[in-house]
């Protein structure tokens, strides 16, 4: 994949001010979103994944404060889309003035919220809600042009244009979610943040929405930040995946790397937390313990109380994201076990085999086959 970033997040931290001191919801997170890519952000509730996304969209309100970091957005240089080439200089998102921010949102970056029920206004028809966006952001647009664009958008997401005059309660859950996606697409943005877009939907509908997102992305070329707690879903749709735990990224890798060679014990645990449909039925263990309380984070690596490989350094030193394998510099992990300078204990047979002492659930056959695919899709 060529290096064509559309969004760069550098050392971003977000605190929630509370009576008992600041809560570090997002702590020193950096990542790059490539153009046309689906970047998956996975984590449990309270891991800071939504806070991170909202910080990028400048949607956070007090008591949340961005305490450090930068967010750079690189608008599409020319090409398709209406007057996209007016501004090709990178945008420092966190420094935008309120006026510029208004112009930035929706045109450059839009959001699909978790619950389509709440994201749509129940007393306005879907058409009115699309027109509302267009009227605000493109004041010059004529009424008929707005109508036309709204119809086009609905058609794009697979809803018959005659549903424009429907109210949200007249649509099914899946159609509502499609309508929300249509609204997010209204100004042809460069980036769409999708915050658990399918969580409230049934699996069959979820599958349709995912397919829809994939086709739309191929056609329109936007990038997606896809937030979910469902790692198995993410592994299907995302090109790159980042795992968050207690406000920090603990591992980032391509989808195939993460699935086949997870480095972080937490990632490994997550991958083994959902039962599989195929392969032998094995006893499964999950991850012992509970996610930490952000108000009282464990010292050092926040995962160490739940980690069965924790050693001395884990309790004292905060691990940073490093690339342990020189041949895959994009696969980064924040774990002392992969950092020789911390002198991790020698595990019999190395870490990967120690991890695999947990019940192995992947069939040997597909693994072999996917390993080929892995080598061919890597850069």
């Amino acid at each position, binding site marked *: 994949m060529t290096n064509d970033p559309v969004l760069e997040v550098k050392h971003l931290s977000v605190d929630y001010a509370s009576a008992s001191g600041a809560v570090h919801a997002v702590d020193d997170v950096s990542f790059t979103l490539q153009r046309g890519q689906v970047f998956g952000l996975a984590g*449990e*509730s309270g891991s800071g994944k939504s806070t991170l996304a909202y910080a990028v969209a400048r949607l956070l309100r007090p008591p949340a404060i961005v305490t450090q970091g930068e967010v750079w957005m690189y608008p599409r240089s020319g090409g398709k889309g209406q007057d996209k080439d007016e501004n090709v200089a990178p945008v420092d998102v966190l420094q935008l003035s309120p006026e510029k921010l208004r112009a930035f949102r929706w045109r450059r970056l839009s959001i699909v919220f978790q619950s389509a029920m709440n994201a749509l206004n129940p007393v306005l028809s879907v058409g009115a809600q699309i027109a509302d966006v267009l009227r605000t952001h493109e004041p010059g647009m004529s009424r008929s042009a707005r109508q036309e664009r709204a119809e086009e958008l609905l058609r794009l997401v697979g809803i018959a244009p005659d549903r424009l005059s429907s109210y949200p309660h007249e649509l*099914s*859950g*899946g159609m509502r979610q499609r309508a929300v996606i249509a609204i997010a697409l209204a100004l042809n943005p460069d980036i769409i943040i999708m915050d658990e877009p399918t969580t409230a939907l*049934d*699996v*069959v*509908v*979820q*599958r*349709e929405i995912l*397919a829809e997102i*994939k086709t739309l992305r191929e056609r329109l070329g936007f990038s997606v930040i896809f937030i979910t*707690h*469902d*790692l*198995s*879903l993410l*592994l*299907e749709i995302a090109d790159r995946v980042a795992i968050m735990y207690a406000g920090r990224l603990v591992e980032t890798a391509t*989808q*195939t790397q993460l*699935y086949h060679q997870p480095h972080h014990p937490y990632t490994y*645990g*997550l991958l083994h*937390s*959902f*039962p*599989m*449909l*195929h392969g032998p*039925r094995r006893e*499964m*263990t*999950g*991850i*012992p313990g*509970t*996610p930490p309380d952000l108000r009282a984070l464990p010292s050092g690596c926040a995962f160490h109380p739940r980690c069965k490989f924790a050693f001395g350094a884990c309790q004292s030193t905060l691990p940073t994201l490093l690339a342990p394998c020189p041949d895959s510099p994009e696969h980064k992990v924040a774990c002392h076990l992969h950092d020789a300078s911390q002198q991790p204990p020698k595990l019999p047979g190395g870490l990967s085999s120690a991890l695999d002492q947990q019940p192995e659930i992947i*069939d040997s*056959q*597909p693994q072999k*086959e*996917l390993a080929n695919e892995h080598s061919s899709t890597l850069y």
Partner: protein
Amino acid sequence: MSILQPFTKSGKPTSNKAMQPGTSTTASKDGVQDRPLLEAEHVRKEFPLKRAGFFGPRRGVKAVEDVSLSLRPGRSLAVVGESGSGKTTVARLLAQLYPTSAGKIRFRGNPIKGKGGKAAREYRRHVQLIFQDPFSSLNPMHTIRYHLSRPLRLYGHAHSAAEEEQQVKALLERVNLVPAEQFIEKYPHQLSGGQRQRVAIARALAARPEVLLADEPVSMLDVSIRLDVLNLLLRLKEEDRLALLYITHDIASARYFADETLVMYAGQMVEGGPSEEVIQEPKHPYTQLLLLSAPDPEKTEEGQRSASPLLAARGEPPSLINPPKGCRFHPRCPFAMPVCREQVPGRTELGNGHWTHCFLYQQTGKLSSPVIPQDTPESKDE
């Protein structure tokens, strides 16, 4: 026998049965194993709606249509379906939270009366329900001690304060909330979702039931702790030989968790049998669609799915006020035949306890060639 015996981890499976006056048969030996504890026979449930106008037609939501199932001691049955498939209604009918519109529910072979009062309380001593949402199923105004001691007192298991204290602690230890002293005085808001669900499970156990109905017990919990709670339920099932009903929308967890699986669509049963059979060799087009749609990292390429004609079955479950005639899946089914629009398909036995309600299999019991490509690892090799 010590009052604490049923709570000890190493306790014999039968120990708590022996204590219950209602349990005359020690239903533990293998011969009795196959006798169902709780059965539903052709159960229907219709929720009446307001008439449209005074002379309007009588209408109702036909939530459950002709469901039969049986729960056996020490066995778990999963009911899988999408929202609106009627799976939660089935659990609530079995728990006697709603009266049935038609059909019978039998407990140990005796039909239960739909009325509340003393009989219902006696029934709940044996059949307990765990709700989906541990954030709303516990009373925020009361401590964990209160939640657990109430059933102990109501069902007459604890006769003194000391006994009560002891049993509450034993219950907390059984659901791995240790040290129990730390949890006993806490309020629900001080606990995480997983801990709350454990309290809810402990509360259900406090009645010393024989049947546990778990309605999506883990869907509100974080991914990493779901397995913990499921494993806890499995362990309890083994220890107490509980008959377990597991309601879920996640068919993969049914495979892991349940001996038998039953798939529901729009209030009708469509397929059932041993979990492994149903999931590895789904017969009903809806089950196949469900399995095809489930997230599966092994199938990262969309191409592996698009081959299936089932993708034409997009759409959503029908309205249950005016459900389609015949098989309720027929408007979405790519293999629908004229007969599917007219009649409700009967049960076709496929062997091994595997059955389906589908006309495709009615003639022979088996299709000569599989209509739908199966997602076996072999098919990926091409």
